[in-house]
């Protein structure tokens, strides 16, 4: 056994991706083939793609739910679904889309892209990364197992008490939702910690904080936000579960309990969550748009600060979901004002994009079309949000279809359109092949037209007084045509989305070979082959500007990044950690190898939560003991990772 190496000066070499060094790195970083390798990989690229695919599976499930109840609403007095079935479907639709699709898909992009954008070889905690994926997957399966067993939540995604309390809602549907939500919350929180440490510590040398890719600003900002906001909703669901299954009294409506506390705890998380599912998407647009427009982003600093500002303000607006609950006018005035203030950072981003397009030379590919479509729906969704931020207007519109229209403009417009742009942009990096542009055009236009035809009329039916969450409506209210149009639009939108799946399936096999940098883009991920090798970068790049691959065209010659020459770091799986602000190299970190432990620990943790149904204390205790034992093995200090202070045989 060799003595642990505590210190060295890393070799600086110039090597390509076909060198012997690269082959050595490949042997170190590669996941072994076969079923064991599949279950134990910690490669962020593999995990990122799994996140995206799983999130899309939930998107399809949630979409089918919506398409079923849109049929019900296509005309007045239709009875395809009973009221209870309708309640279950719209709840599952909301829960699936907002919790198990919208954020995890962005996590997938970030997990795949962040180490590549930052010029490093993996996330800060690779095994934790695998663990958070498995927990996310199992939490979603857990929720849908309840669905299959007929225990379906039916109180809407925000699940207000006392409607969701046991005296008014028997059965296990709400418990499945509560426990699945806490489980997902654990995954989200640990994932956020992973992103914060990765982005603050793992950047390539020289990538000081003012050179951070704009997309990393989005991920960093919301990760910090989620670290502070996630406990609120987990606690709310934990209280609710205790009320329902242990018999405590937090919000069940009896005696001195406080049902309104649920709304506070829910929305203290809920509003930052809205930003969590849009800010990374917005910053994806800021990352893609300059590539399509052939120039650096206009107003980088302003846009980065606007992202941070949106999140900060996002913690002071939760009561705008509760304007109609009878709070003091002082509270309403404050929260109304902050809600309207958020327009300012949103407008900063908007003008940054407009200026980038205006002063650039846009290439009209599918990715750009989705960016442009995004900007249009961003404005419509922003304006309807601004309207409901005003207290008297909100009193008129709350619980109507206007709010449903607004939320879909925000969540589809600001999330899915950006995700689509991201897929067309980064699919070549993920797979090595380009998506088909001809199908892409159809994909965009069907989705864009279907979306606006489907969701814009919701604003009008809301203004005409149609309440949300009604399972049917009588004739002659003036809502018939609007609802029919909405249903038709949503089906066009679904067909448009289907074309993406077709395009992915076809192009994965037959698409044009992409090469390292098909878009002639500026950020570090495009300096690697497509798809990137397991170790990402053969040498750790040294960064001297925000657009390291465009420097020949933009920079003075004395200020150049070094892409092909840098620290080689091949004494085992290694990455460089740099200082949080200046990105000066500080330490060579030893990274863990693939392991089955994250999967096993995630299974044990899921067992703890499954035991919460009932509750079955034996299952909770047994799973907790197993999880603890696995954690102990997982964290056992290791000489090879230079975690210990002495070499021992």
């Amino acid at each position, binding site marked *: 056994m060799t003595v*642990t190496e*505590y*210190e*060295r*000066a*890393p070799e600086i070499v110039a090597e390509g991706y076909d060198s012997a060094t690269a082959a050595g790195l490949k042997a170190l970083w590669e996941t072994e083939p076969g079923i064991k390798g599949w279950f134990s990989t910690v490669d962020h690229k593999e995990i990122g793609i799994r996140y995206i695919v799983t999130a899309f599976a939930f998107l399809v499930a949630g979409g089918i739910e919506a398409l079923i109840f849109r049929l019900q609403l296509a005309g007045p007095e239709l009875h395809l679904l009973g009221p209870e079935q309708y309640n279950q479907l719209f709840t599952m639709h909301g829960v699936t889309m907002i919790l198990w699709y919208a954020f995890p898909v962005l996590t997938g992009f970030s997990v795949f892209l962040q180490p590549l954008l930052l010029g490093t070889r993996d996330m*800060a905690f690779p095994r*934790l990364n695998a663990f958070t994926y498995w927990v996310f997957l199992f939490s979603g399966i857990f929720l849908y197992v309840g669905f299959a067993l007929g225990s379906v939540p039916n109180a809407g995604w925000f699940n207000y008490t006392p409607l969701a309390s046991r005296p008014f809602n028997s059965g296990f549907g709400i418990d499945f939702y509560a426990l699945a939500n806490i489980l997902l919350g654990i995954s989200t929180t640990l994932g*956020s*910690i*992973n992103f914060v*440490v990765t982005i*603050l*510590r793992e950047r390539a*040398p*020289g990538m*000081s904080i003012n050179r951070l890719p704009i997309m990393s600003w989005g991920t960093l900002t919301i990760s910090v936000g989620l*670290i*502070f*906001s996630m*406990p609120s909703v*987990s*606690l709310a669901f934990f*209280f609710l579960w205790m009320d329902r299954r*242990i*018999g*405590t*009294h*937090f919000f069940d409506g009896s*005696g*001195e309990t*406080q049902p309104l*506390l649920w709304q*506070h*705890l829910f929305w*203290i998380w809920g509003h930052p969550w809205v930003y969590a599912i849009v800010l990374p998407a917005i910053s994806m647009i800021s990352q893609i748009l300059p590539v399509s427009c052939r120039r650096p982003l206009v107003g980088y600093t302003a846009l980065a600060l606007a992202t941070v500002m949106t999140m900060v303000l996002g913690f002071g607006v939760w009561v705008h979901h509760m304007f109609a609950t009878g709070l003091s006018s002082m509270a309403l005035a404050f929260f109304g004002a902050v809600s309207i203030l958020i327009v300012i950072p949103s407008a900063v981003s908007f003008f940054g994009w407009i200026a980038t397009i205006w002063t650039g030379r846009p290439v009209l590919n599918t990715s750009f079309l989705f960016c442009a479509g995004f900007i249009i729906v961003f404005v419509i969704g922003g304006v309807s949000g601004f309207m409901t931020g005003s207290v008297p207007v909100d009193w008129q519109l709350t619980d109507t279809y206007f709010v449903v229209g607004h939320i879909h403009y925000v969540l589809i417009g600001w999330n899915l359109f950006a995700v689509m742009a991201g897929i067309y942009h980064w699919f070549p990096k993920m797979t090595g092949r380009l998506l088909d542009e001809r199908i892409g055009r159809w994909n965009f236009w069907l989705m864009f037209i279907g979306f606006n035809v489907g969701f814009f009329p919701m604003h009008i039916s809301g203004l005409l007084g149609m309440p949300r969450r009604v399972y049917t409506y009588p004739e002659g209210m003036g809502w018939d045509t609007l609802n029919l149009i909405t249903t038709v639009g949503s089906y066009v939108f679904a067909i448009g989305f289907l074309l993406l799946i077709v395009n992915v399936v076809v192009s994965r096999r037959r698409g044009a070979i992409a090469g390292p940098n098909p878009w002639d883009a500026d950020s570090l991920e495009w300096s690697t082959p497509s798809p990137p090798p397991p170790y990402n970068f053969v040498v750790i790049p*040294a960064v*001297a500007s925000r657009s390291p691959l465009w420097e020949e065209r933009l920079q003075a010659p004395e200020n150049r990044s070094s892409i092909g020459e*840098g*620290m080689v770091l091949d*004494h085992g799986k*290694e990455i*460089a*950690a740099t200082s949080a602000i*200046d*990105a*000066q*190299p*500080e*330490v*060579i*970190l*030893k990274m863990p190898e693939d392991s089955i432990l994250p999967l096993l620990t995630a299974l044990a943790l899921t067992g703890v939560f499954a035991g919460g149904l009932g509750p079955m204390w034996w299952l909770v205790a047994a799973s907790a003991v197993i999880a*603890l034992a696995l954690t102990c093995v997982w964290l056992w*200090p290791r000489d090879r990772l*230079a*975690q*210990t*202070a*002495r070499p021992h045989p």
Partner: protein
Amino acid sequence: MSELVLENRRLPTGSIGKLANGYWGMICFILTEAALFIYLQFAYYYHAVQPHQGPWPPEGIPSMRMALPNTILLLASSFVVWWGEHGTKHGRRSHQLLGLGIGFLMGAVFLGVQGLEWQNKTFGLTSGAYASLFFTVTGFHMAHVVVGLFLLLAVTVWSFLGYFGPARSAYVSIAAIYWHFVDAVWITVFFTLYLTPRLGLLWAAP
């Protein structure tokens, strides 16, 4: 920004002190845990300031007979653990083992006294809103003490096996900072549950 020089730059390797990813991860974890306790106490205050039919707390002001000495014990344990961490970094093996081991024992005693405190209550978890809050807030804290105790136990055992010393001690620092958090957050819980009712701040009129 400072000049980037890579040539011949000696760098430490592995998990070293405050440069270790684990240390940064633990700081983030503590932040999210701190937020959890803020929301727990928000729930308590939210209930407390609403109009009540009787006094708040309904069963009278909780006694400090056991809670105050127990608080002092827990705070003292932080210093002992700090002393153990200091011993680890300076290669004093007996300091290291004694500090971490005694810190663990003090935490375990705190947990036992908390158990007695629970037993002595005349009300149970499901008696009412105050009771649910009291047991849940203190229960969450005890759960965190248990996690802290596991960490202290682990680093004590690993120290006994000779894993940590001046060259590498990140694990000890990570366990220690979590323990300090568990102690610090208890001060806020103690203030909320035991002191605010005495200050007469939360006796909202019926």
